[in-house]
């Protein structure tokens, strides 16, 4: 194994991690501020990817597609929040899970009704495809570097938003005591809608970015949703910093596990069974990580003590 290969895998892990962060940020904000478990977050991710594919196909512009993914997911977020989710804040988590699960079914079949059952075409513009040479003899796909850049920029932007702006102050206040900030005259209903739309837009953007290198298809959101939940549990529910650290940790652990474990088993058994055992263990690795974090820090790495 060469150093360049290892470095490339680290970059892959980082890229996977920042993408998970964009997905998990919205989920953790919504849970932290409103105490809502939103299973339909993955549907907003799917919606973003489909909106991007449809607009990119109609206009030929990937940038317009990305804008459409943000807009479509944000609008869907506002509609879902005002029509349905708003009535669930006072209910217990089971009701929220059931209602948002129903939303998954509605979004899935609605998307099939609108776009058909076959995967859509969404590809990168020529300017963004291909690879670049990095120092150390690594050639790395340009678009993956771009995803790392966009992800880090979103992380920085969210950090500033939450810690340096008036809106961020209200979000933090809403997290710690929502009755009190309502009593202080903050329109809590509007704050909730804004936070939900922000989370939805981020999920939509993640869907569009990931969809352009993966597959734009029905049901693409649910596997990512599970990973996003792992991320926010590891990072501590409600914490943006936690979501960021958790996402990078999960991304790097998963990528390096898939890469190193089969090789490690290869030292003690034949190649075929080593890959089989190694990849089976690698797929469990992030859940092992989650269990370990919860053993030592039951509220996650950056969670507030219960």
């Amino acid at each position: 194994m060469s150093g360049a290969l290892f470095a490339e895998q680290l970059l892959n892990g980082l890229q996977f991690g920042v993408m998970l962060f964009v997905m998990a940020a919205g989920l953790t904000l919504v849970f932290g501020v409103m105490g809502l478990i939103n299973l339909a977050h993955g549907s907003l991710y799917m919606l973003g990817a489909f909106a991007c594919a449809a607009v990119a196909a109609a206009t030929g512009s990937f940038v317009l597609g990305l804008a459409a993914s943000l807009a479509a997911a944000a609008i869907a977020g506002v509609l879902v929040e005002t029509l349905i989710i708003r009535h669930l804040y006072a209910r217990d988590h089971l009701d929220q899970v059931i209602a948002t699960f129903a939303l998954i079914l509605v979004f899935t079949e609605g998307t099939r009704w609108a776009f058909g059952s076959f995967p859509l075409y969404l590809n990168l513009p020529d300017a963004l495809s291909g690879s670049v040479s990095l120092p150390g003899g690594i050639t790395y796909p340009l678009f993956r570097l771009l995803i790392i850049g966009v992800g880090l920029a979103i992380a920085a932007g969210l950090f500033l938003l939450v810690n340096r702006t008036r809106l961020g102050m209200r979000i933090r206040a809403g997290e710690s005591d929502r009755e009190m900030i309502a009593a202080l005259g903050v329109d809590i209903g509007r704050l909730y809608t804004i936070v939900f739309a922000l989370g939805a837009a981020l999920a939509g953007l993640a869907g569009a970015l990931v969809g352009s290198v993966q597959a734009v298809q029905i049901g693409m959101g649910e596997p990512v949703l599970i990973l996003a939940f792992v991320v926010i549990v590891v990072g501590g529910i409600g914490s943006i910093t936690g979501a960021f650290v958790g996402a990078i940790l999960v991304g790097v652990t998963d990528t390096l596990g898939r890469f190193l474990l089969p090789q490690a088993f290869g030292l003690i058994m034949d190649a075929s069974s080593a890959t089989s055992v190694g990849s089976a263990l690698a797929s469990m690795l992030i859940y092992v990580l989650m269990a370990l974090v919860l053993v030592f820090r039951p509220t996650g790495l950056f969670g507030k003590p219960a």
Partner: protein
Amino acid sequence: MKSFTTTLAAAAVALTLAAPARAEPVTVGMITTLTGGGAGLGIDVRDGFMLAVKQAGNKDLNVFIEDDQRKPDVAVQLADKMIQENKVDVLTGIIWSNLAMAVVPAAVGQGKFYLSPNAGPSALAGKGCDKNYFNVAWQNDNLHEAAGAYANTTGYKKAFILAPNYPAGKDALTGFKRFFKGEVAGELYTQLGQTDYAAEIAQIKASGADTVFFFLPGGMGIAFTKQYAQSEVGLPLIGPAFSFDQGILGAVGEAALGVKNTSQWNKDIDNETNKAFVESFQAEYGRLPSLYASQGFDTANLLLSAMAKASVKDADAFRAALEAADFKSTRGAFKFGSNHHPVQDIYVREVVKEGDVITNKIIGTALKDHADAYAAECKM
């Protein structure tokens, strides 16, 4: 006058009774995947099947269609319901091997016929074969074996192979290695449903292989092919048709151009049945048929050919009529081996662009009259 009409009516009745007995009606239950991920495959099988039914215009054939949502438990419930309530004689439609394993043994155990338009798990081809189970598509290993044979004839010496970590994935790599004579430069099992292949592609680049064989059906294959093209590895790709069927190619786009894939069917197989099938499918549904659609179409025509020969109530005669496979297949000549799985040619196709449409073109034959590796274990 009245008596004349009565006489006429009586004569008509008598004539009807004297006419040869009408063929026994056949009720078919189709259980297939119509919603959720992977619905494209089930929809193609259904559409191909119903196209043949419509063209035949046979009033004695009733078809019940239900959606299994790709869930084994749902498929089992649907099969029970169809057998008990709808009194079906024949079941068909299942796409996925794990669902087939849940439904088929119980259905044939109750004396029903099962015609598989897709899934061909090795268990049902070998020791678990059954006299009432027919596979009209292929045994699961077939297309992968053909890919291995093709890699030999092209002169590849070191192959990097990868598939998802589940039974059909393991069958795929086993099937490839059964025929590939070169060296395996690397072997990887990915997670089922995985969509990011950066880590795997980095290893392919570092492996020193001269070709890559992969079995990643559905969205996994779309993601892999796009990412592989972007990373500019440049090694030739080989795969079974499942990652390059007509339903997927549109989503992969130009990244798939030039990829070689193995299939028992393609739209350019030169025979009258196939030409008519491709044209009428396009006219009916407004899209090109995939191999799944051809399998559905062939399944229905096999069933219709058996109905023309024997009554489904006479199970032995009906089985013999199915075994004869006396129908015009889109694949040209069609015959069953001793374990009721096809013995057929498997072709190599290349992904090409015809006008604006990305599609497949046959460039050669990988295996001729190929039967599966499990037939010898089948005692029926």
